[in-house]
């Protein structure tokens, strides 16, 4: 197999001392139990592909795709190896070698045809203003929610401006390893959303954009809210909740205290789950796993949901719309014993 993308990660793969410290918190390893399910195992597979000691196979592709990019491994790593970056390169090489999967192709066709992951015409709710706000596909689809979330910014003294024709930022093809499609989508995104500085509503989009676009400088909506909320004198909701740290927020953007402080600002007590903050377990929705293997994704989500349930809280709050979806599905499956909400909903309640 020709390795076009893994080549760039040779040094990083050599930097990995294979100490196995990454096993400790890996949700995939905890779920599946084989070493090919560990970050080290996957990096070893990528290295095998890179050196030609391994021929690409469906088995390898499956293993390389079975990672939620939760970044738990990075913080436990002796050498801070960015496993998701290595796996993204491996995925790209595997795609070039013809390892394409129907579920991926279907999703990417939707993005290509409609500009969003749902394959349907979606428009951002119009809101004239000065500061551009990017909603992201998942909030585009939740138009009523998005309207309220944009209003939060107005209530905090900003003049948010939505862009009706915004399209996908390129994260899905990027994460799944479809380089050409990623570049095409990124170009379209820039054309439709021609701003360098803006507020981003979606955790996944903001994280992807910060990593993948060198010229863009998005502010995550929570950063803005965190700064402005104290002066808005929010209503005290008097709720007790538990908070799920989305991987891209807690580990990815180092934002553990901000969501919790916001909860306090709006009069919510929070009860921590068995794992939280930088050690919070993943909901299983990231890294394309939800698309690649829904059943596996749900197994991870179920575990996380159980942790939330064990806190005794009646409301599970999170930020990432994918986490929200995955965990809400688990709550539904379990008779809605806990209500899953976006923190933005609570903030809106406190400001309305």
């Amino acid at each position, binding site marked *: 197999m020709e390795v076009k993308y893994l080549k760039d990660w040779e040094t990083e793969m050599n*930097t990995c001392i294979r100490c196995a410290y990454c096993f400790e918190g890996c949700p995939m390893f905890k779920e599946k139990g084989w070493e090919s399910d560990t970050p080290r195992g996957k990096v070893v*597979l990528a290295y095998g592909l890179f050196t030609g000691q391994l021929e690409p196979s469906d088995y390898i592709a499956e293993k390389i795709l079975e990672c939620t990019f939760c970044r738990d491994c990075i913080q436990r790593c002796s050498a801070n190896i960015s496993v998701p970056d290595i796996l993204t390169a491996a995925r790209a090489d595997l795609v070039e070698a013809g390892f394409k999967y129907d579920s991926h192709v279907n999703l990417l066709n939707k993005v290509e045809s409609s500009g969003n992951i749902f394959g349907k015409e979606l428009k951002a709710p119009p809101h004239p203003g000065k500061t551009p706000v990017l909603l992201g596909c998942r909030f585009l689809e939740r138009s009523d929610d998005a309207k309220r979330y944009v209003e939060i910014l107005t209530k905090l003294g900003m003049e948010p401006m939505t862009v009706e024709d915004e399209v996908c930022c390129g994260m899905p093809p990027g994460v799944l390893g479809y380089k050409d499609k990623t570049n095409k989508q990124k170009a379209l995104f820039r054309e439709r959303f021609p701003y360098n500085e803006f507020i981003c509503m979606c955790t996944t989009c903001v994280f992807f954009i910060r990593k993948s676009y060198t010229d863009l400088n998005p502010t995550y909506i929570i950063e803005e809210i965190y700064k402005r909320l104290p002066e808005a004198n929010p209503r005290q909701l008097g709720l007790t909740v538990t908070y799920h740290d989305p991987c891209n927020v807690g580990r990815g953007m180092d934002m553990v205290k901000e969501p919790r402080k916001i909860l306090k600002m709006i009069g919510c007590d929070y009860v921590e789950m068995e794992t939280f903050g930088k050690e919070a377990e993943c909901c299983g929705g990231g890294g394309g796993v939800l698309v690649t293997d829904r059943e596996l994704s749900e197994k991870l989500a179920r575990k996380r949901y159980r942790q939330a349930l064990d806190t005794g809280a009646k409301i599970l709050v999170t930020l990432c719309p994918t986490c929200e979806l995955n965990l809400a599905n688990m709550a539904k499956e379990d008779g809605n014993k806990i209500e899953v909400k976006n923190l933005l909903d609570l903030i809106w309640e406190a400001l309305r």
Partner: protein
Amino acid sequence: MDLSSLRGIVGEDNVRDNVAELYVYGADASVHQGLPGLVVKPHSIEQVSQIMAYANSQKIPVIARGAGSGMSGHAVPMDTKSIILDMKAMNRILEIKPDDMYCRVEAGVVDDDLNRALKPYGITYPPSPASSRIATIGGEIANNASGLRSVKYGATREYVLGMRLVLANGDIIKLGAKTRVEAAGYQIHRLIVGSEGTLGIVVEATLKCVPIPKYRCLSVATFDQLEKAGDTIGAIIASGAEPSMLELMDDIAIKAVNKTLNMDLPEVEALIFFEADGKVKEAVDHEINSMRLIVEQHGGTVTATSYDLKERTKIFGGRKKLFAALSRYKDGWACTSLADDMAVPYTQMAATARKIHQIADKYGLIMTAYGHCGSGVMHTKILMDPSKKESWDAAKKAVDEIYDFVDEVGGITSGEHGIALSKAPSWKKTHGDMLPVMTKIKFALDPNNILNPGKLQDAPDDWLTATKIRYQML
């Protein structure tokens, strides 16, 4: 190999023969890369017994594997027919007896998980190596692991009261006792500890526990000369002081941490971290103060002391992150586990560190000296460009020369990482007297040589060609 026999023992889902999975299980934290024939995941002692009986009848090598975090190639198979026994699913804590100060666990229990379970009882299993977050008890026993606090708490062997062992032919035997002392026979369990999976498969262990100390105090001292730091270590031990940790970091280690992690450790020739712990604060104070006095008498300057966990974590941050720092010390260079773990007498500590630096300079490599010097353990790593054949040739010469020196000064090839493959040639060279006896013991217990063959005394004489090297050489 008859896959159906093994699948019949452990179930379809617990056997893997896909080449990609095998390749993953052919790697560990060493420079070596092998390829087994099969990976099998047992869930019970009986399953291990049946697997061994089958493997013995077919003369198939079997390598027990915990986390695969060994640095010398312990878990790397030498034969493509080998069965890897992935022991991680045997992870039950079977018994905690705080009043008798012992616990009983399956071999796949992770060290930190065990200590988390012991904590509510106020007791701990203390040999914890740095890898305790993922290292299994079985792996630690196989390797006689120890760690940062071995100066006070010793190594694994001192804590293994007994075990259940599956022999090469599948027989299950019970060894040792549940008592602190024993004078009953050969105490074979003590021989099994450190035997690197060559004499039997440890499936269960009875482990001695100790009370969790109530107080812990850490100090750090700077030295303008490595020799003064070396003398201090010896003097602290000889004084009768009881440090719970006594660590050394040389100037290269300090520079690596500062450069790579943007820390601001004082750029002196050496740092010593010394710690005391115990139940009574006055006693801990006494230990720390007596060590501080010795440090000062030897020209060291104590720059920080704290009981507070956060403060201690900060003080020790540079040492804790040294691994990460070395891994990224020089672009394109890899941090390899070679000559990584020796033990020398206290009086030879500084001389050994100097020698390591000289040899590294001679061969164009980067090496640092650090470690649990209170136990005589000196760690290092060889940093080199792994893509160049010349680097490996240089590393090989450096390893030989370092171990020759270690032997000359009365040291030993491995303090706590074990011998396996990459240290075997040097160890065999200096410990020839022991080899025939070890071989006799090995064949008494494993006549078909199926238990982790090709390791220790049976290892090839050239580690560089013993297996494939994990790095791609140009």
